[in-house]
């Protein structure tokens, strides 16, 4: 099977992941105080449209991971729990795929996907 991540054109707006200084950002509700992901125009927890962006630490832990072996080369799809408590779908990169474990500490690395700096995560020392 070819790499299913091959870019396909979409009419979507570019995803909002990165601040101007290159940090990972999350949408946060100013009314209920909760961050959420993916970002939207109303808070999914209280429906407020009083939203802002917060800068994340860029660190987190692997919540779950599955290495898709049918792709050439294989890659690791994961959910990472950010320090801010929110989970996001991502890839675990720059490591031995067979050594990835749930709960491993990871840090964000932006990789180019479809010309967009895309947040992926690499293992770091806990």
């Amino acid at each position: 099977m070819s790499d299913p991540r091959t870019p396909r054109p979409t009419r979507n707006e570019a995803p909002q992941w990165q601040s101007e200084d290159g940090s990972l950002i999350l949408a946060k509700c100013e009314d209920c105080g909760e961050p959420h992901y993916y970002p939207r125009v109303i808070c999914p927890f209280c429906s407020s449209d009083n939203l802002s962006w917060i800068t994340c630490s860029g660190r987190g832990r692997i919540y779950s991971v599955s290495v898709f072996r049918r792709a050439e080369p294989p890659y690791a799809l994961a959910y990472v729990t950010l320090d801010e408590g929110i989970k996001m779908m991502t890839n675990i990169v720059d490591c031995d795929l067979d050594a990835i474990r749930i709960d491993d500490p990871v840090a964000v690395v932006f990789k180019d996907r479809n010309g967009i700096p895309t947040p992926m995560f690499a293992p770091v020392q806990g």
Partner: protein
Amino acid sequence: MRTTPTAYIAGAWEHPTRKATDKTLIQLHAENVKGALQDAGLTMQDVDGFFCASDVPGLGAMSITEYLGIRPTYVDNTDTGGSSYVLAVGHVAQAIAEGKCSVAVVTLAGKPRTGRPNKGEGAFFDDPNCPDVPYELPFGHVIPNLYGMCAARHMYEFGTTSEQLAWVKVAASHHAQHNPHAMLRNVVTVEDVLESPMVSDPLHKLDCCVISDGGGALVVVSQEIARSLNRPLVRVRGSGEAIKHLNGGKTDLTFSGAVWSGPKAFEQAGVTPADIKYASIYDSFTITVLMTLEDLGFCKKGEGGKFVADGNLISGVGKLPFNTDGGGLCSNHPANRGGMTKVIEAVRQLRGEAHPAVQVPGCDLALAHGTGGYLGSRHGSATLILERE
């Protein structure tokens, strides 16, 4: 006020094909509808309710009712992926209770093996208007790795093993050997599953369902019509539905929407999991079954691995016979949507029309559950409880 459903499944027909090279998609639908009506002893002219989902080509119910030459007074085009057809029975039962229709057809068809992919077969991943797409598509979330992440997390939290998951497939294969239409009729062992190639950790090839063309249809009727027909009376006793999604990033992969749809159905039916004699459980992957059984209350959360092991799902062997047609894992997963065949096999069991080798003796109460969409992101859950009167 709670109304007691008085709807009955009078017709249930599964298309025998698994590879429909010479048939069009609409042709499969037409054959399904005719097959189910014939099974019920009714005709196209009797139909006044129509349910279909996004696997119907064109404008959904508008296109297919034109093709079939019918003009229903009740139409429902709800799509919750592969669970749509389980959910449909609950919706139809409500419509019948309100007198909106008395003979409703539910149809599913698809050609993932021989046709062009359509929206009903899971081609949502690059829908440009879908808000999650730009945040997920770049990471390659194909279906097996979404389910793989659920299995991996379940193993991490509860100590579930690949051997335990494999037992789900082993049980399905024991049943499929008796189904002449099943795609995979060989009985497999736990070792066979573990030795099959890894698709997406920790799910092996034999942890995954088949891909098949085909489909099926149901005819759901009022009590008055049901009693006029020369068919066993299979009553819709309870139904429940739910959507589970990623919850704004407060995501929990350890449970499915069955934790919400199941209790609704059990409450309406006034029964408990211990009363169920046969269960059709959505089996896109082995992990789907294991988690659903926990979430429906057949065992405690985290104990699904123990529950499915050692043949407990094999008819005549274990405590909870499941998917006695071989299920999606071995027999049929038409259109990449397994809900229809789940209801059909439950009806066969209640009628006493399952294969004699897998027929559950005295089967008078059955459950059918659908999980549509993706266990690892967003899915629709639908639970039905059916009773033989």
